[in-house]
């Protein structure tokens, strides 16, 4: 028993650690690792991964919420879209052939690799769209030095919401947090500052993955022998990763993560199309 449990635990520790360092979340590495290395069926890997995403999001978002980086109001509005997508996605995952899910996973990995390479800088608007202003979605960037806080406005709520439905759908279908899609929508379309987008996305991922996990759990598609050690391992790995992150050379690491993403996407795509 111990070799299997130990291997699974080690796998999840590494996935959580790398996921936190890359900012992509552990699921991006745990699903392929379970499918390719541990020969776990795709549905089981997705169900277990969704559970681990809930755990890592809860663990990692605490500091961001406390320090003021998470925009709670934006999160609550956009969660309407992500939860809708996630519930539909998780329901559909039970109806779709595993090879289609593996192919989709490979494509999403390539999208994330592209996003990692083309991340935009800050593009802050002082005033948001009328609806966003009415909902008071704008916020202030925390200033650790005690200086004047910079106000930012939020725009294009409809466009961002539409991408969030897709992000939720992918989360429920593939067992990932869809963080890169969420950050991309907030950063590119809604003009939310990048660090606020990342923190808010991290916070929203818990509810998005939770919606999908509830569908899998209620359907009986969660294997406890995989999900339990995975949840603990990924959470510990992510916590260690987030502690190491401030001391890491993120720019150099990013290139390495992009290469890993592309390689794993090729393997997953090959598996899907060749039937292996």
């Amino acid at each position, binding site marked *: 028993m111990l070799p299997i449990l130990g291997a699974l635990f080690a796998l999840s520790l590494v996935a959580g650690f790398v996921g936190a360092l890359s900012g992509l979340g552990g699921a991006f590495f745990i699903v392929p690792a379970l499918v390719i290395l541990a020969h776990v069926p795709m549905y089981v890997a997705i169900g277990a991964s969704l559970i681990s995403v809930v755990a890592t999001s809860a663990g990692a978002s*605490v500091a961001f919420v406390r320090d003021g980086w998470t925009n709670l109001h934006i999160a609550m509005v956009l969660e309407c879209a992500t939860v809708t997508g996630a519930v539909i996605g998780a*329901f559909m995952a039970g109806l779709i052939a595993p090879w289609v899910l593996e192919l989709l996973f490979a494509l999403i990995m390539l999208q994330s690799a592209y996003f990692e390479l083309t991340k935009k800088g800050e593009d802050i608007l002082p005033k948001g769209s009328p609806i966003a202003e009415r909902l008071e979605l704008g916020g202030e960037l925390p200033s650790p030095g005690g200086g004047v806080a910079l106000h930012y406005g939020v725009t294009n709520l409809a466009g961002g919401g539409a991408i969030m439905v897709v992000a939720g759908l992918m989360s429920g279908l593939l067992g990932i947090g869809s963080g890169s899609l969420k950050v991309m929508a907030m950063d590119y379309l809604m003009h939310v500052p990048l660090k606020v987008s990342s923190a808010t996305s991290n916070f929203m991922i818990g509810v998005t993955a939770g919606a999908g996990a*509830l*569908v899998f759990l209620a359907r009986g598609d969660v*294997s406890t022998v995989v999900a339990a050690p995975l949840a603990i391992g990924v959470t510990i790995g992510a916590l260690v990763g987030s502690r190491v992150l401030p001391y890491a050379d993120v720019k150099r690491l990013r290139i390495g993560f992009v290469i890993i993403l592309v390689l794993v996407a090729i393997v997953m795509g090959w598996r899907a199309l060749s039937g292996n």
Partner: protein
Amino acid sequence: MKAQDEDRILRVWTPIILRTVLAAAGIVLIWGLVAISLTPGEYVMHFRAMQHNARVKDYLTFAQLVMRAWHGNPRAIMTVGLMILTLVPLARVAFCLLFFIKTRNKAFVAFTAYVLAGLVAGVLLGRIG
């Protein structure tokens, strides 16, 4: 109440809720893993069975689950732990809903109620299919 004041209160309570439920789930999951480690052969048997089945269908009614966990069944204990873990987002959204009802922020009552309804719909959809 202004959004900034709401934020200040939510920023205090949200981490407390997240940490408390996460810690409770972690304790139950570790308890389940220790229990299954003490039952020779059970972990490997279930792991191998899972590898050979495309769908797990690890399904019990809630009453069956609680009874089995009560009697020390390791997999039932772990399932309870996983259920507590999925309560993390539910608890957080439910708290926000109650908070916005108290502050009479109608728009955000609607948003959080929708999210909560979506999470409940997830359970119902899972039961169907």
